[in-house]
């Protein structure tokens, strides 16, 4: 039997020739099961639909890869790839440059109203793109408040919107680590005569580097695959690989071209994930070393000013939204909010906006439960560091695989669902039209966020704690319940909040699968905005404000439940 300091699993792996004790066998089975459930979920609800659709593009009575030569022969393809990379790179750089001061102010310092601001910066991240498009265009068009800048329909406008969406990712990722960074090295540098800038650049920044790189990779991923933003603000002139896949699939039904572009996208996304993975693993090791919560510091003026300005810029589109929703004819009023209890005159909607909100909440509950269950299992499995190289690599692949849904086109997933989810495995009801796939599709999107929130916390648990518990006679279940669970539950609040908020705002996959008689709030907003009549437009804006307020509320609640910070 293993000695007291040896983790049992390592012993089991090192001597495969030995007869395996029954207890270890059960444990092995439990871990396999914990890994299998999420894998089957991802396989059935993501890989299968996506591969079926992409496969059609490469199969024409036989394997057909001629699409590659054709698509890469079009000059437009190269321009699109260039634009995608440029958008990803510039959007990321700006988000990081603005996000680091924000992380400092919102997570390193302490002041009243901080929680509200933290929740506030997250609103854009989960707002439906159609709403953000309306808000941005209201600001930027010729006669809008910022029309004098001449940015309407420009590349700059797209970058601004991408930063608007992704600022929170940087602030949370970097801030989460910063709040727990040991302040003593920086204090030591200061007492040795280094100025604040020098101390920051030579001591703090290197310590934050892994978190910054990790955030940057995520933001790059979000920017390079942005769809709605690009389409609403720039259109085809600034098309990306994602918008091009959308056009080729929905407008031209050119599955060959779409399949080739999907491969291109997966390559780009895979590269970003590889960088993110490396940065994360370095960071998570570092995390384990940091214990003490940091003492609050008085805010430095430079980052404070930068952050204040950024927050004003973040607020502008949201203010435009609120102003629009209160505008009634030539005056002001809350008529549009009152109209939310109606179906929009001439019954423009099948349900009132409040009923749609209730549908949204109900779907979000299911999506959240699924995402937390699956994401929690993934995080649990991936958090282990098996010594056997093959197992370790398997764990790393598992980690990466669950990030892929963030990087694959919603159109591909949506069309794929329609293709394979009719009567899968001999199920008698048509799943595509049953409405059951809506929360599932939303969960697929939310799982990576749950994993990224819970995983760093699990990894930060010193493995020796578990070993000690095991040595003292605790079974594996008891170790999980007494060591891992209490720590996880605290970060789970944030994961639940994120999954819930993402589900509330999700539109892409939902629009493919939603039942018209049971629409969600974003679907209703989209419908209202697509109808003539100033009153319905006002209603759509009012409904968007409700969605934003709700999202902020959910995030604020999640903040309160949060113990350790996750990455987001």
């Amino acid at each position, binding site marked *: 039997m293993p000695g007291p300091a040896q983790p049992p699993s390592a012993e089991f792996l090192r001597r495969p020739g030995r007869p395996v004790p029954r207890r270890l066998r059960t444990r092995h089975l439990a871990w396999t099961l914990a890994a299998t459930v999420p894998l089957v979920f991802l396989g059935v609800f993501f890989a299968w639909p996506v591969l079926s659709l992409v496969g059609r593009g490469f199969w024409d009575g036989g394997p057909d890869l001629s699409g590659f030569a054709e698509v890469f022969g079009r000059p437009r393809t190269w321009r699109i790839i260039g634009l995608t990379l440029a958008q990803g790179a510039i959007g990321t750089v700006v988000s990081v440059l603005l996000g680091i001061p924000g992380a400092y102010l919102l997570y390193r310092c302490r002041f009243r109203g901080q929680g509200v601001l933290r929740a506030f910066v997250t609103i854009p991240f989960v707002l439906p793109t159609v709403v953000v498009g309306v808000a941005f265009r209201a600001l930027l068009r010729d006669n809008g408040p910022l029309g004098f800048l001449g940015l309407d329909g420009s590349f700059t406008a797209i970058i601004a919107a991408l930063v608007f969406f992704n600022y929170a990712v940087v602030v949370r990722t970097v801030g989460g680590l910063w709040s727990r960074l040991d302040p003593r090295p920086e204090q030591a540098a200061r007492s040795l005569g280094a100025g604040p800038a020098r101390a920051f650049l030579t001591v703090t920044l290197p310590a934050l580097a892994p978190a910054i790189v990790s955030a940057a990779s995520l933001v790059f991923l979000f920017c390079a695959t942005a769809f709605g933003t690009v389409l609403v603000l720039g259109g085809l002139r600034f098309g990306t690989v994602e918008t091009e896949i959308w056009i080729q699939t929905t407008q031209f039904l050119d599955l060959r071209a779409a399949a080739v572009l999907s491969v291109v996208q997966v390559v780009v996304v895979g590269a970003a994930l590889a960088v993110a993975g490396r940065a994360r693993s370095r960071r998570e090791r570092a995390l384990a070393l940091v214990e003490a919560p940091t003492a609050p510091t008085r805010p430095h003026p430079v980052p404070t000013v930068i952050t204040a300005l950024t927050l004003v810029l973040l607020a502008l589109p949201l203010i435009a939204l609120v102003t629009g929703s209160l505008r009634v004819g030539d005056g002001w009023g809350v008529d549009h909010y009152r109209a939310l209890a109606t179906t929009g005159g001439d019954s423009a909607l099948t349900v009132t906006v409040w009923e749609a909100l209730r549908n949204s909440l109900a779907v979000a509950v299911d999506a959240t439960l699924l995402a937390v269950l699956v994401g929690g299992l993934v995080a649990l499995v991936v958090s282990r560091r098996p010594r056997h190289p093959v197992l370790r690599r398997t764990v790393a692949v598992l980690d990466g695989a669950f990030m892929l849904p963030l990087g694959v086109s919603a159109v591909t997933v949506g069309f794929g669902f329609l293709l394979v989810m009719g009567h899968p495995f001999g199920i008698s009801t048509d799943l595509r039209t049953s409405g059951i796939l809506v929360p599932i599709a939303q969960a697929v999107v939310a799982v990576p966020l749950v994993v990224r929130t819970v995983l760093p916390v699990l990894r930060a648990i010193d493995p020796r704690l578990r070993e000690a518990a095991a040595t003292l006679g605790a079974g594996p279940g008891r170790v999980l319940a007494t060591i891992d669970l209490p720590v996880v539950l605290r970060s789970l609040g944030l994961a639940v909040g994120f999954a819930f908020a993402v589900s509330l705002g999700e539109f892409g996959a939902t629009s493919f699968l939603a039942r*018209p008689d049971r629409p969600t709030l974003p679907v209703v907003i989209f419908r209202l905005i697509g109808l*003539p009549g100033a009153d319905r*437009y006002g209603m759509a804006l009012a409904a968007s404000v409700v969605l934003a307020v709700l999202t902020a509320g959910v995030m604020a609640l999640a903040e309160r439940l949060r113990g350790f910070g996750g990455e987001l």
Partner: protein
Amino acid sequence: MRTILGAGLVMALAACSVTTPTADESSSDGGTVTLVTHDSFHLSDGLLADFEQRTGLTVKQVAPGDGGALVNQLILTKDSPLGDVVYGIDNSFATRAIDAGVLQPYTSEVPAAADAAQYAPDDSGSLTAVDMGDVCLNVDTVWFADHGLAAPTTLDDLTAPQYKDLTVVTNAATSSPGLSFLLATIGAKGEDGWQAYWSALKDNGLKVAESWSDAYYSDFSGGGGGGSRPIALSYASSPPETVTDDATGPTTAAMLDTCFRQVEYAGVLEGAQNPEGAQQLIDFLLSDEVQEDIPGSMYMYPVSSTASLPDTWQQWAPLSDDPWTVDPAEISANRDDWVRTWTDLVVG
């Protein structure tokens, strides 16, 4: 404490879950008919319920996409159709759906079927016209009055210097009115002339927005969103929506010489589980109760000549007497090429 709160939250969430099937799934007695539509399908309260009561059918709706996406989804799911009947395929995509074999012929015998027949895309009987509308440029009449400028009336007016920087249209590759307007210009200027026309439009400060709502609310000065351009691509049926409480008429008008007629069709899907139910539903869509509801609920005109129009439409939303047309077979053969050429030429 937090642990308890967290666990409590999870349990509370579990309690109000919706995955358990709701009652409406099991209320059918005469069978279910599944209607696949675009996102804009909508009828006034009670109409569908009456139909269900009368026929014993339960109507289930799915709306997986709009315009071209809807047709492409039907083609992709041909082996396992999404439903029994489709509504919302328009004349710019009709022949693609017919050619792909996703529809089975059905000729309705209700009175309005004769009216519908004039709009048939071909003689295969695969698609039944249900409603129609004109995609036309709209002008903000108040703006033109304020600026002492005569509102434009023809396509050629739009390239005149006095109307520089005043027009917004939507993208032909991503929006269905945009595609219709491209077809209008092809109908007007011919295969050889439309590109030169668009170049002239572009030189005259044309703006291309991505969607109808984007153009109408963000860019159009007459749409209520406070935009700056007084000429926007919309529908002949849009002006009645701009009648203000104190005004005696609409503040906008359609340019009836710039219209393309859009026709929306319904058809029975090949492989339908309930083809009889599908046929009954098509008959229902042609009944005057639905036909008269269409203007108010879907902003389209009925095909039935016996259905009466709302007063505001009779007054302020006339259809074009002579809309531009392009042969459906021509559209089917060239649409993708035209859209790609248009994209290169206008969007860049």
